[in-house]
């Protein structure tokens, strides 16, 4: 296979899931003939007639429809045009989908795709990272693939799961991230991956920030021979505490990095877990690096310093290493 991108992987997974399982169908705005705002579903309506449905601009009803279909045993894959618009579907997701199995014993095999994260010029309403909101609610699985192979395998696995999955796909990676194939190491959802091994400090992160963290690690390698381990969470709920703690056991130092807003969220959860179970392993205070405490700015100049960058991650690591 020649170069495949992250969005290709998503497209291929949708194609294969439709092919493999007649219960799978896709629902979302402009996903039919048009192939979706990001072309994740291009050609699929023609290939699978009647199974790729265009939705009205009704995120609440879209989610409700998908949940109802899931109750009946279908495997809906719901596309939000942007993660940010899932705020309109929020009630259905956290109150209807998340609680259903607990209340009734009937699972909701729903996958909701959220095109997430910032890109230059997208602004406050087309850039959000909403994983922490959904992960807060019991009953939801929240995954955040960072690689082409994970984009494929985790989407396949999400669709196969009986529980509702919020699949956060990063828009910045769509066409930027390339690989030679979708072939993965077959890690299941719930397992983190050590993307880069090291011994001086651990960066725990996920989604697009994995790549920024690796760059920061490379900078520090060049700069001072520091060996930074990078752990890719892959899924934020469930969160693979064991792999994180094992890494901190090797390095003694933790930096949790995320692109979301700084109050609460994934990085706070990571730090809290490490402190509860791996406190004795820490040689320095565990720290966090998130986006700034403002909405996501539209101008690329502002945006580029709103989120963590290789430079700001490296700077945080320097402080951590010098503690």
């Amino acid at each position, binding site marked *: 296979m020649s170069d495949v991108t992250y969005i290709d992987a998503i497209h291929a997974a949708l194609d294969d899931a439709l092919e493999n399982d007649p219960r799978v*169908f896709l629902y979302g705005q402009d996903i039919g003939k048009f192939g979706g705002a990001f072309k994740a579903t291009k050609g699929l309506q023609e290939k699978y007639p*009647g199974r790729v449905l265009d939705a009205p601009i009704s995120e609440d009803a*879209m989610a409700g429809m998908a949940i*109802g279909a899931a109750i*009946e045993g279908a495997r809906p894959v719901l596309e939000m045009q942007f993660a940010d618009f899932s705020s309109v579907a929020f009630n259905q997701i956290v*109150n209807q989908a998340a609680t259903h199995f607990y209340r009734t014993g009937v*699972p909701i095999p729903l996958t909701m795709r959220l095109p997430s994260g910032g890109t230059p010029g997208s602004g406050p309403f087309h850039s959000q990272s909403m994983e922490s909101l959904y992960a807060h609610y019991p009953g939801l699985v929240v995954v955040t693939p960072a690689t082409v192979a994970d984009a494929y395998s985790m989407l396949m696995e999400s669709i196969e*799961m009986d*529980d509702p999955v919020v699949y956060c796909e990063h828009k910045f990676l769509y066409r930027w991230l390339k690989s030679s194939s979708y072939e993965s190491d077959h890690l299941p959802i719930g397992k983190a991956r050590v993307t880069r091994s090291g011994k001086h400090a651990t960066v725990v992160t996920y989604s697009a920030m994995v790549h920024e963290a690796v760059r920061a690690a490379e900078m520090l390698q060049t700069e001072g021979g520091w060996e930074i381990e990078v752990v890719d969470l892959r899924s934020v709920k469930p969160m693979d505490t064991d792999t994180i703690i094992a890494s901190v056991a090797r390095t003694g130092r933790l930096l949790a990095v995320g692109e979301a807003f700084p109050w609460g969220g994934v990085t706070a959860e990571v730090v809290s877990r490490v402190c509860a179970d791996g406190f004795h392993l820490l040689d320095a205070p565990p720290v966090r690096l998130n986006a700034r405490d403002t909405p996501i700015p539209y101008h690329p100049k502002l945006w580029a310093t709103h989120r963590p960058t290789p430079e700001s991650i490296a700077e945080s690591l320097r402080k951590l290493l010098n503690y």
Partner: protein
Amino acid sequence: MDTTTEGLEREHVRHVFRAMLMSRVLENKLGSLYKAGRIVGGVYLGKGQEAVSASLASCLQKGRDVYAPLIRDQAGRTAFGEEIIDCTRTYLGSVDGPMRGRDGNIHRGRPAEGMPAMISHLGAAISLVSGMLLAKRLRGDMEGVVGATCVGDGCTSTGAFHEGLNSAAVENLPLVLTVANNQYAYSTPNSSQFVCHDLVDKAAGYGVQGHSVDGTDMLACIAVMQEAVDRARAGEGPQLVVASMLRLTGHGEHDDGSYVNAGLKSSELGRDSLEVGKSQMIEHGFSDAAEIEEWKKQDEEAVQQAVAISQKESEPDPYQDDWLAYSNPDLQNR
């Protein structure tokens, strides 16, 4: 009233009335248990709305159709075939109820049997039912299927109502959406909820068929519901039925409903659909006073028995409960 009985099947009418009667008997019992402090959680009753509720559900077939009851749908639940014990177990906090103590009372449901378990957020069931229908269509299991739910006048103000009905219309789904216009949403009168002339005027804006009916008139309700359900079954798409009546009780049993307008109470809207139904049963020879009295006794006994069984059963035990929010236990607490 002769015209209203035309086309109505005797067994159908008797089924509706029996469900209405059972509902009233059961809800009266729930009301007294509430006053006696024996109920776990709140009590919301359907008094006055039995005709609408039962007639809608009576046109559905359990095992094939979908019925999503809301807070005032005891009569519809019974008409659809829910067991009385499902109700008493939930209200009395038995762990053997369908929600195992995890959710309460009006929220109970059996989604695998076509009866979703409502969440509190008004309007949320409309798209849910639509989705269930969509799935049936996708797997080629749609022949003659209908999905129905009943909401209140207040619910018509929710975005969920709007998006749900519109989406169902776009997909031409066999959804029967009934609005029980009982003139109030909690304490809020219709005048603070909407200013359209008649709620059925909304139908045209969704491109769906609208039906109006006097919700206190049992036979009229049966006729209209049957028509709406038949049309949906025949592929004519969503049907909006607006039935008018008064809520003959507080919003919940904690509420005395003292804000309800006295003029409305004494108007035609304030009629008790069960009383009207009883007269209609007798007048049109569907039953007679003695048989109805006998039914009532049977119902009282059945309710008494269900209450007695439920009260003897265990409460949920937090140390026995599996506390699983995921069907895959590996996902729990992680």
